[in-house]
């Protein structure tokens, strides 16, 4: 099986977010980066499918040179090669533009399955994967929790998450694109052997400019203003030491809210 898993580099979960001076992005000095959470789960699904059905997993990323780090980790986990579309300066934040670049990068590639995360931890639009499917003319499913491939019939069955604890099994022909939900399985740790082997695996790099995309002609979303949410702090904050706040809370719940 030839599986492509898309991985995005995002600011790490521990980041104490601060807005940059222009007010249009976060201040990226002194922060660390990691693989987007859902994308890591997508990669894990790809590796499980490779173990079951044979074949290879390619990590596809649109990002800066810096993104090579998360790709190396993916290679150490067991992916076979990487393809990095280098976008060092422009910092694309529009899902359609990203999807167009990824579609271009995959133009001459053959694959059975593309796995992406459902959404990113920074922008979180949850659009890129589905847009990529549309651009490539692939059937898709979103918020996927389980994947079963039947190579003989060239079909894939997926369990997708729905609201309120419901879920649904779907079936579609390969090749297909799936957006994968976070938290669905345990992520493997790269072994020492894997880390060593990763050093020798290839990460092919392609400049975004060389993909011949007229970026200005594509639909875009402009981030006009990034700001800390207005503290509509409705809550009455109780002050004092532990014993005191607990006292106050019980008093309020009994006398004011009348719920105790």
């Amino acid at each position, binding site marked *: 099986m030839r599986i492509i898993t898309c991985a995005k580099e995002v600011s790490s979960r521990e980041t104490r977010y601060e807005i940059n001076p222009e007010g249009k992005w976060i201040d990226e000095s002194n922060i660390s980066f990691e693989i987007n959470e859902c994308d890591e789960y997508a990669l894990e699904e790809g590796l499980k499918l490779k173990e079951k059905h044979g074949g290879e997993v390619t990590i596809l990323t649109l990002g800066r040179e810096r993104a090579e780090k998360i790709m190396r980790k993916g290679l150490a986990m067991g992916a076979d090669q990487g393809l990095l579309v280098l976008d060092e300066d422009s910092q694309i934040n529009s899902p359609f533009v990203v999807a167009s670049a990824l579609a271009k990068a995959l133009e001459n590639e053959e694959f059975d399955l593309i796995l992406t995360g459902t959404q990113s931890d920074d922008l*979180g639009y949850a659009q890129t994967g589905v847009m990529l499917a549309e651009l490539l003319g692939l059937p898709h499913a979103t918020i996927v929790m389980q994947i079963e491939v039947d190579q003989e019939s060239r079909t894939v069955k997926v369990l997708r998450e729905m609201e309120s604890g419901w879920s649904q099994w779907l079936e579609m022909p390969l090749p297909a694109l799936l957006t994968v939900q976070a938290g669905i399985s345990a992520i493997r740790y790269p072994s020492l052997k894997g880390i060593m082997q990763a050093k020798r695996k290839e990460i092919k790099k392609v400049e975004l400019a060389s993909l011949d995309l007229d970026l200005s002609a594509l639909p*875009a979303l402009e981030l006009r203003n990034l700001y800390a949410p207005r503290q509509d702090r409705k*809550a009455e904050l109780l002050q004092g030491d*532990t014993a005191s706040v*607990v006292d106050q809370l019980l008093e309020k719940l009994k006398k004011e809210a009348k*719920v105790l």
Partner: protein
Amino acid sequence: MAEKTYVLIHHDGRRVQTISYECLALAQKLSQETGASVSAVVLGNELQTLSKELTSLALEGVIVVDDQRLAEYSPEGYSESLFQLLDEDQPNLLLMGQVYQNIDLAPKLAARLKTGLVTDCIDIRLEAGELLFTRQMFRNKLNADISILSDRPWIAMVQAGAYLAENLRKGSSPIVPRTLDLSAVRFQRKSLETLEMTKKKVDLSQAEVIVGIGRGVKQQENMALVEALAQALGAEIGASRPVVDNEWLDRDRQIGSSGQNVSPKLYLAAGISGAIQHVVGIKNSGCIVAINSDQNAPIFNVATYGIVGDLVEILPELTKRLQEN
């Protein structure tokens, strides 16, 4: 040309979902400033009763595409139907609810139309003559105002509760049946069974008092503190998604957009940041108490009372005092 707003109605075949009434109310509010007409769009099969629900609202019309091929949602059928409708009618704005089905559908439609789509909108407003779409970003910690740079129609998905349906203007609107040619649609995706994922051993929707826990509980060892408190309060235990993903609690205790909706008279949120996916499940609670070590946690925006502190200290003290009384 006069502006037109279309609202795609989310339904289960029988009733219009609340989120669609909220989208219609928001569309009406925007139209007061833009002068745009507002129409509802209903896709599906056997829609007579359902569409009637919408005729008592002040809308330009209720556009109904009633086709056997649309009896069940499919990205292929729905995107082709909307593509044809939008191509012919040329609305400027298409609104729809932020629901899983639309997460599956809208990006496909937007990519085909080559127009801009903003998801998870918590507000849409006109500022200096242009439409700005507000949404959360960066792990729900920051807000962003987005503008769309593309041809129309612009598409926006609106979060549940972002605008209240109680503002909906009543009136009288005609049903406008539309027949579309869906014969060329390639339905590649087949739906198999639909499952209720949780065995629903616990029906939290009936609980009067709930202790909800989140990532802030930090370790499974702290569960004992939570259980002791729940027992002292006579409360059920619920959780936000990360706790359930870690398997500290069964999935039937998950509260939020992909779990249960609760409306207890008292909801005590311990170590819950207040991400919107959880908050939509608790917003009908009578009284919300939030305990979180981060004073900027969004949960304090919805709570009645808040304590900024370490739950490892506060929960046992609270339990002790409740037991004493």
